[in-house]
């Protein structure tokens, strides 16, 4: 034991010494990014020393794209599109997905910094847990663009490209109301509410947008939420996990709907929408009117065949195209494009590049997917 204490003491003392020495003296190396002397001590460091607003960067520079995972269709599509379009534009692309693990994504972004990326596009797993690594990217003069989700709690973000998430929610709520009137006859209607993954900053906004439309109808009695669960935290689906949504729907149906009919369900995305529809069928209910999001292949078929009333398309190609437009503007030395929309991420006001989503129902599916041969294939 004595030996142990001695070692521990020595180790702790050395730490204390290092820190206290530092506290009472100052000096050491100082940061001089512009001078060649500093960059010579820095020669092994791949980080570039130009700031993003300077004269742009080489047309064949490396661009990093860090995505949360490839478990849903929209991310897989984003991954393929980024690879094709960045390489077509002449950039070197590093596209990585982090398997929905935050530490993995942190390390991936660090490795992109090591690889000398000039721009890093980040579709975060949890928008608030990348603070340290994004600030590291900023210190290295790298532009950070949030993709599809807001990057919170950090100063290291230059802009976020996303679909207006409150607007998306409003569209979902409106589509649910329209569908109920069209499919289920006259009201009042019994509905249930589902929210997305709480770690995704968009999820509460979808819910908020939808409730702006639905709440007045709930208040005047046109809609009844039979389970009484109307708070986002009650309705949220951890990690956007379809299985969790399905079991919540199962228990709501067996608990509250044994003698009632369910008419409609607000669903934040397509996977959860299908889980809800399956649960309703299993419980012997008529299929309710369900909203959705992402226009996944499976759901496009379901919309076409009438099982799922609607989905909202956030065309991934539009999102990717906008992101690449920003990257090209940075490459040409024109900085981040101007935008009117800003959102506070807890530390700074971030430029938001909002894109409009579109509702897809059986009636307009053919028009909307006219330029999308893969999805047109499904509408037969």
């Amino acid at each position, binding site marked *: 034991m004595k030996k142990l204490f001695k070692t521990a003491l020595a180790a702790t003392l050395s730490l204390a010494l290092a820190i206290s020495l530092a506290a009472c*003296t100052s000096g050491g190396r100082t940061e001089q990014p512009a001078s060649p002397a500093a960059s010579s001590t820095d020669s092994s*460091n791949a980080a570039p020393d130009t700031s993003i607003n300077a004269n742009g960067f080489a047309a064949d520079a490396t661009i990093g794209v860090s995505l949360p995972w490839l478990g849903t269709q929209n991310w897989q599509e984003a991954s393929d599109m980024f690879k094709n379009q960045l390489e077509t534009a002449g950039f070197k692309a590093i596209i990585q997905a982090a398997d929905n693990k935050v530490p993995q994504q942190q390390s991936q972004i660090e490795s992109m910094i090591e690889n000398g990326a000039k721009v890093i596009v980040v579709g975060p797993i949890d928008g*608030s847990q990348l603070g340290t690594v994004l600030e590291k990217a900023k210190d290295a003069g790298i532009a950070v663009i949030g993709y599809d989700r807001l990057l919170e709690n950090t100063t290291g973000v230059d802009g976020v490209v996303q679909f207006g998430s409150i607007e998306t929610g409003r569209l979902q709520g409106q589509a649910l109301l329209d569908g109920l009137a069209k499919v289920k006859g006259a009201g009042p209607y019994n509905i249930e509410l589902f929210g997305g993954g709480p770690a995704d900053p968009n999820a509460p906004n979808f819910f908020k947008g939808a409730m702006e439309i639905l709440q007045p109808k709930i208040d005047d009695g046109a809609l009844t939420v039979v389970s009484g669960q109307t708070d986002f935290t009650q309705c949220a689906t951890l990690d956007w996990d379809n299985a969790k949504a399905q079991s919540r729907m199962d228990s709501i149906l067996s608990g509250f709907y044994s003698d009632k009919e369910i008419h409609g369900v607000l669903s934040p995305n397509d996977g959860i929408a299908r889980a809800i529809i399956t649960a309703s069928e299993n419980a012997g209910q008529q299929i309710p009117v369900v909203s959705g999001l992402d226009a996944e292949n499976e759901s496009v078929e379901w919309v076409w065949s009438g099982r799922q009333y609607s989905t909202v398309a956030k065309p991934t190609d539009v999102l990717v195209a906008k992101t690449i437009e920003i990257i090209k503007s940075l490459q040409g030395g024109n900085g981040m494009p101007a935008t009117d929309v800003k959102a506070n991420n807890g530390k700074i006001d971030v430029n938001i590049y909002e894109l409009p989503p579109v509702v897809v129902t059986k009636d307009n599916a053919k028009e909307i997917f006219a330029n999308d041969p893969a999805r047109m294939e499904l509408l037969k």
Partner: protein
Amino acid sequence: MRAIKKVLGGDLKQYAMIVVLCSLIIIFNIASGGKMVTPSNFQNLLSGNAYVLILAIGMLMVIVVGHIDLAVGSVAGFVGMIVAISARDFNLPWGAAVLIGLAAGVIIGAWQGFFLAKLGIPGFITTLGGMMIFRGAVIWISKSISVPAPPELKFFGAGYLPEWGPAWTGLNNSTLLLGIIAFAAFIWMEGNGSRRKAKLTGQRGEVWPSAIKIMLIGAVIGYATYLFGSGRPGTSFPVPGLILVILIIVYHTITERTPFGRHIYAVGGNKGAAALSGVNVKKVYFLTMLNMSLLAALAGIMFIGRSTAAGPSDGTSWEMDAISAVFIGGAAVSGGIGTVRATMIGGLVMAVLNNGLMLLGVGADRTQVIKGLVLLAAVAFDVYNKTQGKSSIISRLFQKKETAAETK
């Protein structure tokens, strides 16, 4: 050959994984065009993996004692969330929040230890329960929404030691000082060791093996100091790395040099025999579990420092990373065998693989497959050697040369 043995110590097998680690680093460095061995990448490597390696230290002791802890990830996530919430909602200073977090770790450890030691429920089941309880609890108390961590914690999770003193060293002087301390401590220990040996055997050992060893280690420490110290100004040997090194020294000493440490191996090797020779088995179980949760708490706090926020899914599957580090380090599933040093090498092998594959742009899918194969290969190699009763490939290689030289 005999000379090599004298320098490295008798058992060459323990160096097999070090050889693997070094070759991985060299291979990745060549394949990535020199992006592996850079100051910033090594700083990332330590900052980004310190939490897993800290968990692995505790996990090693749990596995040696003959159990396993599946709850560490959930406990780390839970404690991280407690710290973040108590700092945000109760306006506590960060130091107090950290103390509350560590206290929660101790209480959770006592809870797990109680079921394992007093009620005799196997560790696998106790901690499977714990895994669910604390995963549920973290989602519960956070309402599944991430909570920002006190900014001061960033120093512990991803911070650097300060710059001070003269600039002509060209290095971060804190790192330089650490290097000098490490080298001095090593010389002191080496001197102590040979004095003790001389006392035991009654004769003075040869001086030259010690001298060569000191030169070798000196070169390694010197290079590491240069590598970590020569990064961008403002960076140094990372603080989480320093915390890890201190823990390694402390736990190496506990497991190898204290009665409690010997008891862990005794209980893990043969519980009955240990009990008969007067070891308090229950106490050993209890303290091992307590210690594990305390380390998990520390890992969770460091992680939220690095992430700048505590999230509801923090810690998911960390236990698996820690367990693989322990087994790659050569610990036995049945207990009784394994060392802190080898576990750290095992953890670093995984970390370097992960980091190197990322630098090469390999996706998470294939990385996962490769890590799984490496785990299997490492353990199969170990088991094969044990059942064959032979020494490792490396020492066998040397063996041949040695006998060849002798027959000449």
